[in-house]
Each structure stands twice: as C-alpha cells, then as structure tokens.
C-alpha cells in the first residue's frame, strides 16, 4: 500500500512539474491576461443584450408572431427589441477591442483610457468603411460608405485583438522614449495627460496608416479580410471540434486538481474563439437560419459542467443522499445550494478535491462524459444547438438549458447531472467509508481524550 502511495506521489510530482510551466506561461502572459480581462468588459453588455434577444425570440411561436405583428409608432415591437441586440451583440468587437486595449495598457503601465483609444483608432484605421448594398431591382451591388456591422461584430474580433496589443505597444514605446509634451506644473492632470498622449497616439495613427496602405497591395486588399481568412476562420474551425473542447477541459481539470484555477487559464486562450462562435450562432438565430456551431460559449458554460468545475453538483447530490460520515454530510448540506448556482469553492477546498487522488478520476472524467454526450446529442439533432444567448454563469442548470436549447436542453442537463451522480457515487462512497472509519476511531480512541469529543463545541 505504502509502495503504491509512493508511486502515486511520484507520478503526481512528475505531472505537476510538466504542467506547471505551461500553466505559468499562460497565466502570467500579459497578452493573454489582457485578452481575457478585455472580454470581461463585453460580458455584462452581452448578458443584458441576450435578455432582450431572449424575450423577442422566446421559443413560443404565437409570442414571436405577436411581437412581429404589433406595431408602435410605425415599427414592430420586435424591431425595438432588436435595437438593443444591435447595440450589444452586433457591435461586440468594439467592447472587446476597447477592453483589451484598456487592460493591456494597464499592464504596461501606460494610461489605460488612452490605451483603449489607441486600440480603437488603430482598428478603425484598418477597417474597410464600406459595405455592399444592392437596391431592389438594381443589377449590381454598390459599395456604400459606413461603419460595417459585419466587421464590428464577431468577425472583427481577432484583428481587434492584434490591433489593441500592437497599438498599445507602439504607444508605450513612444512614451518610454520620452517623446511626449510635458506641461508645466499647475496644469490639471487630465489636460496634461491629453497633451502627453499626443505624440504616442500620433505614432500609432501613422504606423497603422502605413499598414492600411501596405495591405491594399496584398490579395486580401485589407487587414480585416486577411486576418479573418488566415487566422480567425482556421482557429474557429479547430475550436468548433469535439477534440478541442475535450482537450481544453482535460487540461483545465488536471490543473484544478493541483489547485490551479484551470478554466481561468484555458479561458484566456479559448474564450475569444468561443465568443466568436457564439456570436455567429446568434446572428444565424436572428436571421432565422440554421445554427452553425455546436461548440460555443454556452456549450462550455451550460453543458460541460454543472455546479462548477468537475461538475460537482453531481458529487454533492451523491454525497447528500448516500453518504453517512459527518464531514461529508455537513459539507454537502452546506454546499448544495451554492452548487446549484455553480459556486463550488467549499467543495474544491473543503472536501477537498484539490490534491485529493481519491476523487481525481471522476472530477476529470465527468466533464468529459458530459461534453461527449452533449456534443453527440446535438450533432444528431436530438437536442437543439445553443442559440448564442449568453447567460450569467450562476444561472442554475435546467433553467439555463431551457433558455439556450429549449426543453430538450433542460432534459439533457437533468440526465447528465443524474449520470454524474452515478459516476461519482463509487468514489465518494469510498471516501465516505474511510471518513466513517476515521470518525469512529476518533470517537473510540481514549488516548486523545480531550479531542475525542464528537463535534468540538465552544
């Protein structure tokens, strides 16, 4: 037994020493942190935008017809709702670019608000300010000048990430060189700051002005088409596969086992791709087309785990109904309600799950099983693909499944939670048995007389 423990210990040390550097590189990478935190800026806007989207597209046909046919001052009620969606989802990349520029500037210790401004201005310089428009009855489409919704939505995200980071880098480089206008003392700081950023912003604009010109001689004609074709589309294709989703979650959960916030780390790489995929689904939903991507933000948030990382809601249900040891009973009683809202800190540290080999196998495997079953049921059409409506991560399962994939989504979630209970059961029972033994020993051991109180009371 001891030999086995020693072997396990050595294996864990080896695994930790292999994974730790990767986790460290990702979690301390300035660009990735800026991207992750930048996307958080768009999150509340997308959640609220989703609510409006949800009301106007609630999956009951008479309701949808009612909103479409009832008018107020000449416009249908549905069109008022879609104004909000247009101001949030359709221009989501603007929030992301602004957020990433802001956060990256913060990391580089330059003015965050001017970082955000540099990011936006550089991105807009590269953006083709036209869209093709074909009037009814016309033979060909015209290029009409405008800010194209096509590019300020999900399709502009990756070029936006690059612009945000590169522009702030230029800004910082100029500032570090000392090429700034310094105002005399007594000038209000905001005025001083706006003069100080004159040259750095100027350099950003000049550089991107040149980049814009250079791109006109490439086959893509502009940077947006280029990055969308050679970077975003391939990444989305890779991201929208079962293998990628499984790989990401496997990595995240092994990290969790070592006490590292795994999804936080994988999110900084994977979330931009998921966002783009979700936005395309939502656009399809709005246009009444077939939803294109099974894997997306909602798939990860709503169908991979229930109750937080490791799908610990299943674990808690198994513990609550089938375990007898005082520790586990009490823990499950206290943690099951937060668990319903996907908060699982008490279980992660309290049971514990971190560094506890006895529960590692189901903790890592249950999310994998959830992902595979959800993917397959959506692929064969048994459950509708997630519609792109973004919900706060605390939305309880079954409700979230219903809002995202209709009643089939709710049933799938309930079934997966139940399956998780079965998978966790033998493992939590084994721990329970061990704990019961320890508790009995502690009670019957007169050696530690004072400590052998049942529950220590004060």
């Amino acid at each position: 037994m001891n030999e086995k423990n020693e072997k396990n210990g050595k294996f864990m040390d080896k695994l930790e020493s292999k994974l730790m550097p990767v986790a460290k590189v990702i979690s301390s990478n300035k660009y990735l942190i800026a991207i992750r935190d930048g996307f958080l800026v768009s999150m509340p806007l997308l959640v609220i935008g989703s609510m409006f989207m949800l009301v106007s597209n609630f999956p009951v046909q008479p309701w949808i017809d009612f909103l479409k046919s009832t008018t107020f001052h000449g416009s249908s009620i549905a069109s008022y709702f879609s104004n909000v969606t247009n101001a949030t989802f359709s221009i989501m990349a603007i929030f992301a670019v602004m957020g990433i520029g802001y956060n990256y500037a913060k990391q580089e210790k330059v003015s965050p608000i001017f970082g955000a401004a540099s990011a936006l201005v550089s991105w807009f310089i590269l953006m083709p300010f036209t869209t093709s428009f074909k009037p009814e009855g016309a033979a060909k489409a015209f290029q009409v000048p405008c800010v194209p919704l096509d590019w300020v939505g999900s399709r502009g995200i990756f070029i936006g990430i690059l612009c945000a980071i590169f522009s702030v880098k230029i800004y910082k480089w100029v500032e570090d060189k000392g090429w700034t206008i310094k105002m005399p003392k007594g000038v209000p700081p905001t005025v001083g700051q706006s003069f100080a950023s004159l040259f750095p912003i100027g350099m950003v604009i000049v550089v991107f002005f040149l980049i814009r010109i250079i791109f006109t001689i490439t086959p893509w004609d502009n940077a947006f088409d280029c990055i969308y074709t050679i970077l975003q589309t391939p990444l989305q294709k890779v991201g929208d596969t079962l293998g990628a989703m499984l790989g990401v979650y496997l990595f995240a959960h092994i990290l969790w086992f070592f006490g590292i916030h795994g999804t936080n780390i994988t999110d900084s790489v994977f979330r931009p791709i998921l966002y783009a995929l979700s936005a395309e689904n939502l656009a399809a939903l709005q246009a009444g087309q077939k939803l294109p991507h099974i894997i997306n933000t909602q798939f990860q948030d709503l169908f991979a785990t229930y109750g937080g990382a490791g799908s610990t809601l299943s674990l808690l249900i198994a513990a609550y109904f089938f375990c007898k040891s005082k520790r586990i009973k009490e823990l499950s009683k206290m943690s099951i309600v937060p668990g319903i809202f996907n908060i699982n800190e008490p279980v992660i540290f309290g049971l514990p799950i971190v560094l506890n080999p006895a529960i590692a196998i189901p903790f890592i495997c249950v999310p994998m099983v959830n992902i595979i079953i959800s993917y397959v049921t959506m692929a064969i059409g048994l459950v509708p693909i997630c519609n792109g409506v973004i919900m706060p991560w605390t939305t309880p399962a079954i409700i979230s499944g219903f809002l995202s994939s209709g009643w089939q989504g709710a049933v799938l979630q309930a079934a997966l939670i139940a399956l998780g209970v079965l998978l966790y059961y033998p493992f939590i029972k084994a721990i329970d048995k061990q704990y019961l033994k320890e508790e009995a020993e502690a009670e019957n051991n007169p050696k530690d007389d004072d400590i052998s109180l049942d529950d220590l009371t004060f």
Partner: protein
Amino acid sequence: MLKIITIYDQIQSGMGTKDDKMLPLGGKNVPIGPSVMMEPFLKQIDAKVVACLYCGTGTYFNDKETVGKKLCDKIQKLHPDIVLCGPAFNYKDYAQMCAEVTESINNSTDVPAFASMSAENAEVISKYKDSIHIVKCPKKGDGGLNNALENMCKVAKLIVTNQNEEAFKAYCF
C-alpha cells in the same frame, strides 16, 4: 507522533462560501479541507491533524476578543504540539484572522503557532512578519499549493523540534 491542530475559515473548512461569513465557531476531531491535502506530507514528518477548528471570518471580526480567547482556551486545553493557521491564500479577511489568531495563541498559550498566506496580503504580512512566522503559499488558483503544504509541514516539524529560525526562514516571509 506530532499532534497538529489547524484553524480554517468557512471556505477552507467546506462549511460555506465567502458569503457565509457568520459561520459559528466549531471544530472537527478529524482532518478536513487542506488537512486532507497535507496527508502525504504529514506522513513524512510523522504527524497527525488531531483537530480542525473553524470560524467564519464575519463571526471572528464581529467579536475578535471573545472568539480569539475561545480559540486560545480550546488550544490550551487540547494542547497539540503546534497550530497551523491557514493556508489563507489571498483571502484578505482570512489572512488577517490567521495572523491575529496566531499571535494570540503564541502570546497566551504555551503551544506554538504559525500562519500561512500569499504575498497578495502585503499589509498583513508587513504588520505581522516580525512577530509571527508566516509561511508563503500561492494565491487561490495559482500553482505551487502542493509545495506550500509540504513547506508548512516542514516548518511545523522544525518549530516543534526547536530548530533555529534560520532552518525555515526560506519558507517564510
């Protein structure tokens, strides 16, 4: 065998989330939370966690004096070889509680105690690092927890066996 008592907040004891601050003072005579994670390292130093005391951070800050005194009285009565307060990660309130409770135990009982927290608690660390031992641990969700727990066990052993402070200085702030 080295007898250890640990002191946890509501989260580390698994008794609640950060919002369940008012968890009353309590204890278990079996290992819970991080004490279970420490098991392989406890074996290495031939030690056992004989009890885990816990208290919500709100309960503690509501009436520091009474709660602190109750904890010290309990420790004196149970009389372990050493008390571990933490790991508190970057939980600000819990780190503060750990530092204060460690100091009270050191001052009012004959049982030695030390705390553990992450560098993010800079204020607490600078205020207390000269009066108590604070073992370094990562912030929540960062790498190196395994190592920190091992170091806590090593420090426990070194303090109990009256080793010179130099022997464990590297593990502390």
